[in-house]
């Protein structure tokens, strides 16, 4: 391994001027220095930043090709490093909270549940249950309709209608989540409060339905991608033996794209799980467990995202560490979903030979 790296370095060096390489190294080092100083909260951070900018300009003028290649590499590493930083900072800040409660924070159901303090026990379980309940409702709303929409766009619609429907669904993804929340808060919540005489303004059902609508565009566009990976030859083959379009979809297209469509649903579930603002303004923010658990109209309501958004602005001490712990749990749940979806998608792409 080491000898291979040395060999590649020699190869790289032979194609570039030594001065350019030194300049590149100093540029990269000043970026590292800038990060280290920034991390240390130093007042001198501005110096390496300025030196980085200056060296970049100098290098760009003198050795453009080498600097361009080197800098793009540094930027790629920086992009990956951002994810690493997020994980590191979340875990470090959440550590004292987990240190106090251990994994009991995830399943403890006895009072007191909230809020985290150094002397009393606390629990994330109500929020985890809340997240699961709202996500389940959202999936029930979004999965069937989303798959139907994907089938329509990829298999049924004429070119003209597709040009209308597809941008329309993308616009739906573009509407900010706080706007959905505002409408949910002003119209949907009030409607349920008045017409269904629910005990609080806002409940799991309205929140779940709203974030289901918000997860729809994700499911539609990813599932549509998956459906269009199914080779045309397979569909034509089915049609050639005399099936109807629907039989082809049901027996050939959907089963072949099944893994991709399930990846789409997983990604949609991830979106619904991480959805924050609409849920924050619609949910009643009371922690507890619905009794019985299917009472989605009840007075309790809090999810992992909403508790962070609602209380994070002015929490301190163990309270904020508990919120970071909630962030870690949420991040892990969404990450598992998205990685699974990616693995499924990659397998499907390699199965049908990637023309995409």
């Amino acid at each position, binding site marked *: 391994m080491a000898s291979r790296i040395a060999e590649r370095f020699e190869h790289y060096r032979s194609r570039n001027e030594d001065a350019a390489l030194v300049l590149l190294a100093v540029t990269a080092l000043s970026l590292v220095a800038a990060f280290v100083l920034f991390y240390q909260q130093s007042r001198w951070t501005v110096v390496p930043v300025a030196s980085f900018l200056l060296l970049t300009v100098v290098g760009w003028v003198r050795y453009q*090709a080498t600097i361009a*290649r080197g800098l793009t*590499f540094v930027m790629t590493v920086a992009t990956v490093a951002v994810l690493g930083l997020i994980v590191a900072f979340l875990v470090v800040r959440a550590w004292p909270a987990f240190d106090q409660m251990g994994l009991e924070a995830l399943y403890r159901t006895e009072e007191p549940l909230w809020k985290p303090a150094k002397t009393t026990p606390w629990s994330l379980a109500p929020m985890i249950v809340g997240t699961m309940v709202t996500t389940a409702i959202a999936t029930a709303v979004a999965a069937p309709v989303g798959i139907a929409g994907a089938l329509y766009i990829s298999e049924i619609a004429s070119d003209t209608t597709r040009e209308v429907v597809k941008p329309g669904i993308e616009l739906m993804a*573009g509407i900010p989540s*706080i*706007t959905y929340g*505002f409408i949910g808060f002003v119209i949907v919540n009030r409607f349920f409060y008045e017409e269904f005489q629910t005990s609080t303004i806002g409940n799991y059902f309205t929140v779940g339905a709203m974030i289901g609508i918000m997860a729809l565009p994700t499911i539609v566009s990813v599932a549509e991608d998956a459906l269009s990976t199914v080779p045309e030859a397979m569909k034509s083959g089915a049609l050639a033996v005399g099936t109807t379009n629907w039989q082809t979809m*049901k027996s050939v297209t959907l089963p072949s794209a099944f893994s991709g469509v399930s990846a789409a649903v997983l*990604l949609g579930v991830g979106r619904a799980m991480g959805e924050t603002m609409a849920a924050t303004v619609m949910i009643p923010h009371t922690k507890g467990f619905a009794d019985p658990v299917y009472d989605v109209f009840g007075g309790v309501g809090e999810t992992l995202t909403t508790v962070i958004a609602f209380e*994070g602005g002015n929490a301190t001490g163990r309270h904020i560490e508990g919120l970071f712990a909630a962030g870690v749990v949420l991040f892990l749940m969404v990450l598992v979903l998205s990685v699974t979806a990616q693995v499924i998608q990659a397998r499907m792409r390699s199965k049908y030979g990637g023309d995409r």
Partner: protein
Amino acid sequence: MSTVTRNALVSTETTLREYVSTGVMALGAVLFLASWAVLFQWVGESTPVLGVAVFTLFGVLLLAMAVGIAGVGVAARLGRVSASPSASAGLVVGVLFGGIGFVTGGLVASQTLGMGAVGWLAVALAVGVAVAALAVVPREDVGSTFPPALFLAFVGALLVTGTLGLGWSWSPDGVSATFVGSVMVPVLTVAGSLVGSWSAAKARAGFGTQGREGGAFYLIRLSVFGMLGVLALLVGFIVKNGLETALTRAQFGLGGHVGLPGSILGVTLPNWSVPFVDVQVPFVTNVSQSLFVEVPGLAPAILGTLWLVVGAMLFAIPLGLAAAIFLAEYTESRLFRQLVEIATNGLWSTPSIVFGLFGLAFLVPRFGGGKSLLSGQLVLGFMLLPLVVITSYESIKAVPDEYRDASAALGVTQWQTIKSAVLPAAMPGVITGVILGVGRIAGETAPLLLVYGGPPFSSQNPSVLSSFQFTSAPPFVSNTALMDAGSALPYQLYTSITSGRLPGQGAPFSVQEFGWGTALVLLVVVLGLYAFGIAGRIYFRRKLYNE
């Protein structure tokens, strides 16, 4: 999907079966829309239509649908109308209608007749099995018309007789909600119209495989229609409710001056005079709270969003574009590329509130411990980064290899090829991707709550450009505007939900109307960006394939 035109093997003239089932579908559509209108309270529940109460009319129409469907089924079974039914409607249909029968039977037995657990379970099972058998055992023309007709007739009868009406209410044990007639009648009517129209759509296509396709396509089309309907409702509500607020004391005329915020981008402006134009929209140009402002406006929020977006773009575009170039053009290591792809996809799917937490842990303590514009810009930049990498990478990949080969054949270096051949060809895709990404982060609220959100109603515009100060001691340069908390359009919408009332006296609208106006302006900004991006994508794609 098929490019083969279908030749009708059967006669092409419209048959009686088609007339009746089309009629039933039309009835279903009317009922569907009318029920939603009642749910949204656009039509009062007790408004008489044609001399009958709305709900009674619903019942009559449902009964008519039931008669129509059952009639077509019977006629097809007796061979009076042409059809090509299969031997059975199929197990899926049986299970679905069995389920409806089970629930209906169970609810009637337990709630209306007050039977115990054993009793209602027995009744529910009996009804469910009977309906399922009715769907599965007879030929398809009966099996897929009679169960829906039964359901419609049941609901219709409840409505016509007034058993289920305005006065009806039901609060089941264990669920803290009361289901009242004024809601449940339209909901049941929607369900009935769906079931009935599905059955009619099957009948219209003559049952059999064509019939299944007709029924399935009907449901799929309806889902898409529903989605677009939701979109139209959202936009419609916001425009209808927000327009009046947004145009409070607005003037459009000739002659006079253009009302602009006193300082825009930190540069103090004179009272602009543009001949022949007089446009004043105080809701857009005023600050949100001040002694001298009669109409609270959105200028601080709009400028805040502008600065957030500009900062995020300055941070994310160079970084993301460079990473995309390296991935697409330089690296040959599959492993490295996969690693970066996993990282960017991970970043993309990370919930926005987690980015906020990260900003709170990493940036806020390093920018003086308080919320600041700079932290907001960087956090939104982190969120924009994966979008820039993914879209740029895709569009660089999409540049045909001929471009690279042709350039390399001229004997230029790899970097010159990238700079002069690949990047210009990929640029439209990159720009559209960035616009879509910006549209996404411009509406982002959750991270701003943690790292940027200042007072609920800001009294001053952020003036970033004029706040730079240079000092002789480190850090040599400072900018108070970048270090201040402030407002942004989505944050303003959030505060208008959480604040009970507008500050100050005598605003011409309530805080909720202020919210509607904010939602409208936010929607215009974000959807404007999206429309721009999507139109650009369609334009460039056409250009690429027509060339």
